[in-house]
């Protein structure tokens, strides 16, 4: 390719030309203009003339930062230009680098090392500052390691703004290269006593950042921070220093006692809201055990809440939420303000208020709060409405409905929520309805009422968001049909025409529930006419019923009450033979036939449905009807005839199916499977890859099942009959097939005896062990309840038992976030802080931070540096190692004069440092001495 010509350089377009060009280009052609400019830039940037190159790079940077053009390809050109002697070129080059380089992926960063080093040591402060800015943007571990010596020098630069930038940049270097801490930390700490606000601000900012990660390492610096807290008048610095104390105070109670006073003082005095808020936040998060301070803070918060500025209101609410964790009274005191904030215009404020309202929830006020919230939900926009519903559901459902006392109310409330027009929380309501059905026996009656109201309402079927709720309602109606006042009504609801609007999976639930209802009706009818005392499932049946002795009303009694209102106790219970059985029989039989016909007409078309779930379930019901119907009709026709013989088989079947359904479904423990002991000799982790090869040719039956639909529906009756027979006697056909398969692939079967053991040993989900633990838990729960009731006599009835399984269920303690690899920076800091302490026996600097006791010890050791060093070497081999590394490190830095390679020279180095800084330290030590208070002998008080 031809190099850029002179013409190119002469007629090169400037940045302004590009900007104007883009602005003038007609809409839509911008991108072509940019593409054209990029082509130009690609040519120009290769120029050997630095001016042309710089302009090209400048243009490219513009296109990159304002128009998102890719400039990663030009990385090398930035590096080239950075060595230009013209400051303006250098600036363009470094701007391009800092905007476009990615520390982890741009490879040419390493080529910048030399230039950066040169600029960092330059005598031109602007170059130094430019290099520092660039370094902080593109720092990677290699750069950090190689430039640490230069940075070390700059940390004590006499130019304030250079020093300031060096401090900010050093944080990036620490992150990338923790060993830099060993070199630079001391100088950074020295800057804490600098009088210049800029430097102080930078250094406090740096510590604020470091403290956030690992507060413990910086406890020894507490006296320095305390001094700043008391003396400094710069709000920004104060905010940062208060942030530091927010991290340190929880670690050392005595520190909290010392800082609480100055923080309260700042809070009271300052006019700056930001500082006041920081004080408040620190008090409520870290100093919440100082009651008077919390009171002051809450007073300040109230000012925030009453302010017109939405920002302050929002922050006030946020801080109040923090207070709520420890001091509930603060929220209750501001209750009316919080509730008012619920109707704010800003959704942020509303959400914060909502969170707070939910904090206030207890079993006493849950009903009231929910009522308030629902009224808010009804008049808010859909988004916030759902946010409210979400919070309600979450709070009420928390920890097995901990706050709910009155489940009848809650169940109705769930139904009410489902009917809110914007409700999109169907799935959560669905799972709670089912969950309560299974866990809280006492709530079932009300649940069935609520479910009935939901299922029966044709308007609800049109709202796809609550199909989940309807599924739950249908399931509840079917599962607890014996509690229903009128199963016929439920059946009609389940089969209403608008159910065609439901999704197939929900529809399947509807059909299954209809199945349960019809079985229940048939069974009740049979029972009414049951002359046969030896009904096989009678006991199961009565078990279910006997839970509700007073309330239970059957189909029959309901139907009868029309004609015989004076006979309301017509309750079907075993042992109680209805005296008017013939009349009931008459009524029931006819209505039953009507019911069966209804089901048949409605489900008939569904047997050809494309949805497997729907189709299969409909076929099941239809199959049953085919079987039952002739018998029923037969009964109707020859009422007095051979009814007993004819009905026998059908009734047995109904009994059996009913028996299957009447088994109470309960929640299953998450750990149920874990509790199943693994049988000996069962190999679970064997690689079964070869099995795939063998079975590869066996096609999945899935593809054929759809084409079989027709066939299946035609043969539905016969199939069903066949299946029902199979239920009674184990199929010989399948066993023989199984045996054959086993013969062929015996390798993959478990040994016969093991298989036997497995089937015998697998406990059912509700094994006796479970039950036992349930009972004890229930007992505990009950005793707790009774205690609660004693405390609150206003509770009219005791809280119903909520079935819980083992502790593990529901709340799995959130897996602990994997511990971050030992924090390297803080490790290094500790090495520096503690290591210096130990090694530099004569260093007053460090000891001034420690307790007087420690200092005395150090000073008493001054005379025996050799032995001290020995001890250190034995105790912490790490220190010797690191400090030698550090000396080595200086080897290519500016500090060559400090350098020494032998261990014996360590003290020279330290002494030099001491003499350099001894004067300033002395002052601080005197101050420290003055402030000495009585201390416990064990833990050093870091705040001298």
């Amino acid at each position, binding site marked *: 390719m031809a190099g850029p010509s002179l013409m190119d350089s002469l007629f090169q377009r400037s*940045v302004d030309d590009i*900007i104007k060009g883009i602005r003038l280009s007609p809409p839509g052609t911008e991108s072509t203009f940019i593409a054209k400019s990029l082509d130009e830039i690609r040519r120009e940037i290769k120029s050997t003339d630095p001016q042309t190159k710089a302009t090209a790079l400048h243009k490219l940077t*513009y296109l990159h*930062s*304002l128009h*998102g053009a890719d400039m990663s390809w030009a990385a090398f050109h930035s590096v*080239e230009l950075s060595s230009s002697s013209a*400051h*303006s070129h250098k600036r363009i080059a470094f*701007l391009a680098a800092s*905007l476009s380089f*990615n520390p*982890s992926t741009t490879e040419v960063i390493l080529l910048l*090392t*030399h230039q950066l080093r040169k600029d960092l040591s330059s005598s031109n402060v602007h170059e130094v500052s430019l290099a*520092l*800015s660039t370094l902080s*943007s593109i720092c990677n*571990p*290699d750069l950090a*390691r*190689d430039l640490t010596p230069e940075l070390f020098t700059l940390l004590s630069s006499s130019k304030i703004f250079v020093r*300031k*930038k060096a401090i*900010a*940049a050093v*944080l990036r270097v620490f*992150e*990338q290269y*923790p*060993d830099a801490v060993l070199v630079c930390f001391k100088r950074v700490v020295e800057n804490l006593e600098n009088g210049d*606000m*800029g430097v102080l601000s930078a250094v406090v*900012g*740096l510590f604020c*950042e470091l403290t956030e*990660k690992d507060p413990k390492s910086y406890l020894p610096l507490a006296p320095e921070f305390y001094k700043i807290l008391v003396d400094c008048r*710069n*709000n*920004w610095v104060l905010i940062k220093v208060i*942030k530091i104390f927010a991290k340190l105070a929880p670690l050392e109670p005595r520190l909290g006692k010392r800082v609480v006073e100055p923080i309260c003082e700042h809070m009271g005095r300052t006019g*700056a*809201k*930001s*500082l006041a*808020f*920081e004080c408040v936040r620190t008090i409520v998060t870290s100093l919440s055990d100082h009651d008077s301070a919390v009171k002051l803070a809450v007073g300040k918060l109230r000012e925030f809440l009453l302010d017109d500025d*939405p*920002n302050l*209101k*929002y*922050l006030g609410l946020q801080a109040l939420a923090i207070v709520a964790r420890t001091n509930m009274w603060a929220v209750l005191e501001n209750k009316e303000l919080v509730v008012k904030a619920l109707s704010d*215009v*800003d*959704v*942020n404020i509303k959400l914060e208020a909502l969170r707070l309202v939910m904090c206030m929830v207890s079993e006493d006020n849950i009903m009231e709060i929910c009522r308030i919230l629902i009224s808010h939900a009804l008049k808010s926009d859909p988004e916030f409405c759902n946010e409210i519903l979400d919070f309600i559901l979450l709070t009420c459902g928390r920890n097995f409905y901990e706050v709910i006392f009155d489940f009848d109310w809650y169940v109705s409330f769930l139904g009410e929520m489902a009917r809110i027009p914007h409700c999109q929380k169907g799935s959560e309501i669905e799972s709670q309805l089912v969950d309560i059905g299974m866990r809280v026996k006492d709530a079932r009656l009300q649940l069935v009422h609520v479910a009935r109201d939901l299922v029966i309402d044709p308007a609800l079927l049109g709202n796809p968001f609550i199909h989940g709720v309807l599924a739950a309602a249908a399931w509840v109606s079917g599962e607890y049909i014996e509690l229903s006042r009128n199963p016929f009504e439920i059946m009609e609801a389940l089969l209403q025409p608008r159910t065609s609007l439901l999704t197939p999976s929900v529809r399947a639930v509807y059909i299954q529930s209809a199945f349960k209802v019809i079985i229940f009706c048939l069974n009740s009818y049979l029972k009414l006419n049951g002359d046969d005392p030896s009904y096989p499932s009678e006991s199961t049946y009565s078990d279910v019923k006997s839970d509700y002795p007073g309330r239970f009303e059957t189909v029959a009694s309901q139907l009868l009450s029309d004609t015989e209102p004076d006979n309301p106790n017509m309750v079907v219970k075993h042992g109680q033979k209805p005296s008017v059985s013939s009349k009931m029989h008459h009524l029931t039989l006819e209505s039953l036939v009507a019911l069966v016909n209804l089901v048949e007409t409605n489900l008939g078309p569904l047997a050809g449905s494309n949805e497997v779930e729907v189709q299969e379930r409909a076929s099941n019901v239809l199959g049953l009807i085919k079987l039952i119907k002739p018998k029923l009709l037969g009964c109707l026709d020859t009422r007095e005839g051979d009814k007993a013989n004819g009905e026998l088989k059908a009734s047995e079947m109904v009994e059996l199916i009913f028996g299957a359904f009447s088994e109470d479904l309960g929640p299953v423990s998450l750990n149920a499977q874990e509790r199943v002991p693994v049988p000996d000799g069962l190999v679970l982790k064997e690689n079964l890859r070869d099995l795939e090869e063998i079975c590869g040719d066996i096609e999945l039956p899935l593809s054929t099942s759809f084409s079989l639909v027709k066939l299946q529906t035609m043969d539905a009756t016969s199939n069903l009959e066949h299946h029902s027979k199979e239920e009674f006697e184990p199929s010989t056909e399948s066993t023989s097939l199984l045996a054959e398969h086993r013969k062929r692939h015996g390798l993959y079967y478990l040994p016969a005896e093991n298989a036997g053991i497995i089937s015998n040993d697998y406990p059912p989900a509700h094994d006796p062990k479970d039950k036992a633990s349930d009972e004890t838990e229930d007992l505990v729960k009950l005793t707790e309840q009774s205690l609660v009731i004693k405390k609150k006599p206003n509770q009219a009835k005791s809280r119903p038992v909520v079935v819980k399984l083992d502790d593990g269920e529901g709340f799995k303690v959130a897996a602990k976030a994997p511990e971050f690899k030992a924090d*390297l920076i803080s490790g290094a800091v500790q090495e520096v802080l503690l290591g210096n302490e130990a090694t530099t026996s004569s260093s007053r600097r460090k000891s001034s931070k420690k307790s007087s006791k420690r200092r005395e010890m150090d000073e008493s050791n001054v005379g025996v540096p050799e032995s001290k060093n020995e001890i250190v070497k034995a105790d912490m081999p790490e220190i010797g190692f690191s400090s*030698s590394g550090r000396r*080595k*490190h200086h080897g290519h830095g500016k500090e060559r004069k400090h350098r020494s390679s032998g261990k014996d020279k360590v003290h020279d180095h330290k002494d030099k440092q001491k003499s350099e800084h001894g004067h300033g330290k002395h002052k601080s030590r005197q101050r420290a001495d003055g402030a000495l208070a009585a201390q416990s002998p064990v833990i050093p008080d870091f705040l001298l």
Partner: protein
Amino acid sequence: MSHLFEFATIDLASKNSVAEQHDRLFNRSKGRARVDLRLIHQLHSLIRFILLQNRQGKTRLAKYYIPLEESEKHKVEYEVHRLVVNRDPKFTNFVEFRTHKVIYRRYAGLFFSLCVDITDNELAYLESIHLFVEILDHFFSNVCELDLVFNFHKVYLILDEFILAGELQETSKKAIIERMGELEKQE
């Protein structure tokens, strides 16, 4: 170009030898360095990025203090614009953004957005945005959007004096104006 390249190669070689020395001395440092890249995401009170966008969502200034892929940057800019552009002036100046918080302020048709940690001091950053705008206003004497476009490099310079490595550098308007005056002389 060739001489530049030579110098670069030499530099690389010397760097390698230094690196080897270090690896001998800190035989863990290589492993450490790799882990450390992740520490960046642990930083708490730093500014993650500062954005300057107009009402149409055109970025006028974007400075990231955390390393992000280019595509990710564009996504962030798009999302932040969508978050702030339709907010009523009566609303709070804070919006939650992913796991962080964006503090924004609107000046005429320009949105200044700062992304900080969720626990950081919102009011202080709100004030600092204002300070930044005041500095711009002073520097360009009555700043408008076009000033920022045509002088984008100077805006970055001012920003570098104001915020470095995600940390607020200077809270004094006067100091920054003075510094900028000195820098102008360098040109």
